[in-house]
């Protein structure tokens, strides 16, 4: 936590502007660096919690039959694992990176709305406290899957579902405020000369992500509000008995849900677009096309939602439309992958930990993209739907996609945050163990999925036994490896070789023009951008 404590203020001490002493610094802070650190620590805590739940799931699936947990608890584990990883780990991690880096990258002194920034962070512990507490309530926590389809989440839900609904409301409000803050900062606080098309891609992808957030988080709030009314106020939005329709739930949910998956990946695209040029010692290939491709992905994400629901009985024309629209996303995504590869082409490559994670990101995210294309084929999806193939697909885009993107960013900017170089040897161990563990865990899921193993079931047919054991071993390896990451980060905060202002010789950008560690206040006078 000492990441941002400034070593003294010789020179101009006319007013105090270091961090406040003591614990209240973290409660009351409006400093973007403090809040960024809070978000990142919160996210890592949620990552370990959601990860332990994954360990329970994989332990139960280690062998066929029921050994460790009861099916009721298993359902709560799959549900909470999904909710905590999506809303507690990945999204807050990106908000943390945005808080830390966006003002540094555009030459702003802080976020545009610092007090709201503090509030949007402190809503999160409340939201997740509420959510996790449901596990200890009579009847158990949410057990209906992270997608909480009605009527499982309404008519057949445990009593605690109301707490789940309010938790979603709170995290939604937090995300919306965070997004408004990012938009206001990027549009209003750029340094003179920093035109939109000069912004680093991380800022661009976050700006577009923020617009996605304010467009779809209110729809999520709407759908849980409808659930609340169905459960407590006698309405029938999703109840066929009263004239509603459970399929409507899926439409509204996925109208939120599909843009949500891009919310979780676009900032990673941006970070990787900074990291690959640095370690290739070449400028990014096709900057403008990167910006437009991000915009195109964001637009398309609004018109593909029903590809999650091919099997509910939508008409043939609908299936065709959503199939083709989904496949169209491969075009801007392909542009991005092409640009990353072209950036590396004939570059002077070195493979420090951020680059290792970034290169693995490009390769493995592309594998996840290809399995996504397979799932987009409507007639084939009838075979894949709700099998482990789907689980393999979205873990390939989220783990080596979003999470490797976060690790790459963390290693890339740790010297700037802490003022110390991290332990490169350990970081490479972290990478290779994560890489092997993650592929061992998720690759066999493609095979068992294609062979018909259904997801969200605590038991399986004997024929899937070997692959599941491999998956579990890989998952345990991946899970344990993340404790190494915690150790590396703590070690880096506590000491290590002093980092220069620009620890990466190929790096480019305003964030490297301030000393390491970044002083508590930066760019109080805006830099001049040429």
């Amino acid at each position, binding site marked *: 936590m000492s990441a941002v404590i400034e070593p003294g203020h010789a020179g101009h001490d006319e007013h105090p502007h270091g961090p406040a002493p003591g614990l209240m610094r973290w409660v009351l802070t409006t400093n973007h660096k403090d809040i960024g650190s809070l978000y990142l620590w919160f996210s890592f805590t949620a990552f370990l919690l959601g990860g332990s739940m994954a360990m329970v799931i994989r332990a139960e699936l280690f062998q066929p039959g029921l050994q460790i947990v009861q099916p009721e608890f298993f359902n709560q584990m799959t549900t909470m694992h999904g909710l905590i990883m999506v809303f507690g780990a990945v999204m807050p991690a990106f908000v943390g990176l945005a808080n830390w880096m966006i003002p540094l990258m555009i030459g*702003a*002194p802080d976020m*545009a*709305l610092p007090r709201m920034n503090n509030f949007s962070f402190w809503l999160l512990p409340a939201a997740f406290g509420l959510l996790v507490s449901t596990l200890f309530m009579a009847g158990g926590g949410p057990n209906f899957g992270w997608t909480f389809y009605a009527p499982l989440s309404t008519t057949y839900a445990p009593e605690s579902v109301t707490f789940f609904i309010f938790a979603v409301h709170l995290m939604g409000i937090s995300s*919306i405020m965070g*997004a*408004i803050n990012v*938009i*206001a900062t990027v*549009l*209003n*606080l750029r*340094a003179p000369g920093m035109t939109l098309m000069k912004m680093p891609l991380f800022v661009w992808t976050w700006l577009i992500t923020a617009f996605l957030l*304010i*467009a*779809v*988080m*209110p*729809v*999520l*709030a*709407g*759908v849980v509000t*409808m659930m609340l009314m169905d459960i407590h106020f*006698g*309405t*029938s*939005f999703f109840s*066929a*008995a*009263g*004239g*509603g*329709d459970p*399929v*409507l739930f899926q*439409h*509204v949910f996925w*109208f939120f849900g599909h843009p949500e998956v891009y919310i979780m990946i676009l900032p990673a695209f941006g970070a990787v677009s900074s990291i690959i040029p640095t370690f290739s010692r070449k400028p990014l290939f096709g900057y403008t096309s990167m910006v437009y491709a991000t915009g195109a992905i964001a637009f398309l994400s609004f018109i593909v939602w029903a590809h999650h629901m091919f099997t509910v*009985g*939508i*008409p*043939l024309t*609908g299936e065709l439309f959503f199939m083709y629209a989904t496949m169209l996303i491969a075009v801007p995504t392909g542009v991005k992958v092409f640009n990353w590869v072209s950036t590396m082409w004939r570059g002077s490559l070195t493979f420090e930990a951020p680059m290792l994670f970034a290169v693995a990101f490009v390769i493995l995210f592309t594998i996840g993209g290809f399995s996504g294309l397979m799932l987009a084929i409507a007639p084939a999806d009838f075979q894949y739907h709700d099998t482990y193939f789907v689980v393999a697909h979205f873990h390939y885009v989220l783990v080596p996609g979003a999470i490797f993107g976060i690790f790459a960013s963390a290693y890339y900017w740790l010297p700037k945050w802490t003022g110390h170089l991290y332990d490169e040897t350990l970081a490479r161990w972290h990478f290779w163990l994560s890489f092997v563990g993650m592929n061992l865990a998720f690759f066999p899921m493609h095979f068992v999925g294609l062979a018909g193993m259904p997801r969200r079931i605590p038991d399986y047919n004997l024929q899937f036994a070997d692959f599941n054991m491999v998956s579990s071993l890989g998952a345990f390896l991946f899970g344990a490896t993340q404790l190494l990451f915690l150790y590396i980060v703590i070690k880096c905060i506590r000491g290590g070789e002093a980092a220069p202002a620009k620890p990466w010789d190929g790096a480019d950008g305003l964030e490297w023009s301030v000393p390491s560690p970044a002083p508590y206040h930066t760019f109080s006078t*805006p830099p001049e951008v040429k």
Partner: protein
Amino acid sequence: MDDGLPTARLVRRLLLVVAAMFAFGFALVPLYEVMCQAFGINGKTAGAYTGEQQMDAARTVRVQFLASNAAGMNWEFRPLQDELVVHPGASHQMLFVAHNPSDRPMTGQAVPSVAPARAAAWFHKTECFCFTQQVLQPGERIEMPVRFIVDRDLPADVRHLTLGYTLFDITGRQGPQAQAVR
């Protein structure tokens, strides 16, 4: 660098977007209803039909009837006949039997669905027990009619339709839900 007013105005506009999108989530409910009925998708049939049609004696269509209970419903519920062979354009009636075997008065609501779903737009009900709630006293047994016309314009490749009803127990539910059901 902070130029005050533009930030405040920007935030107000963004909050407006948030409010509009929250409203849009709810607007999806009637929108979905309208789309389903306009295109006859999802097996949803329209409300009471008032038109009249000429019988097409040259063509026959098999209409099968299904009755099932939703979870928790204990009524006996079945059609008098399993199927009818009808001419498009002609009006037909089928009776469904409902019997409340319990020792308390109960309210039931039937929800119709047509398969194949794409044929739903051509299946018209002129009268249906599903338009209202059914209140049955303990042990009471009633016969409930549905009158229907299969449209002359039913696509030629559809020779076989299924009209299914699911009966829900709505005893004790408040609110005038019945109007919403078609």
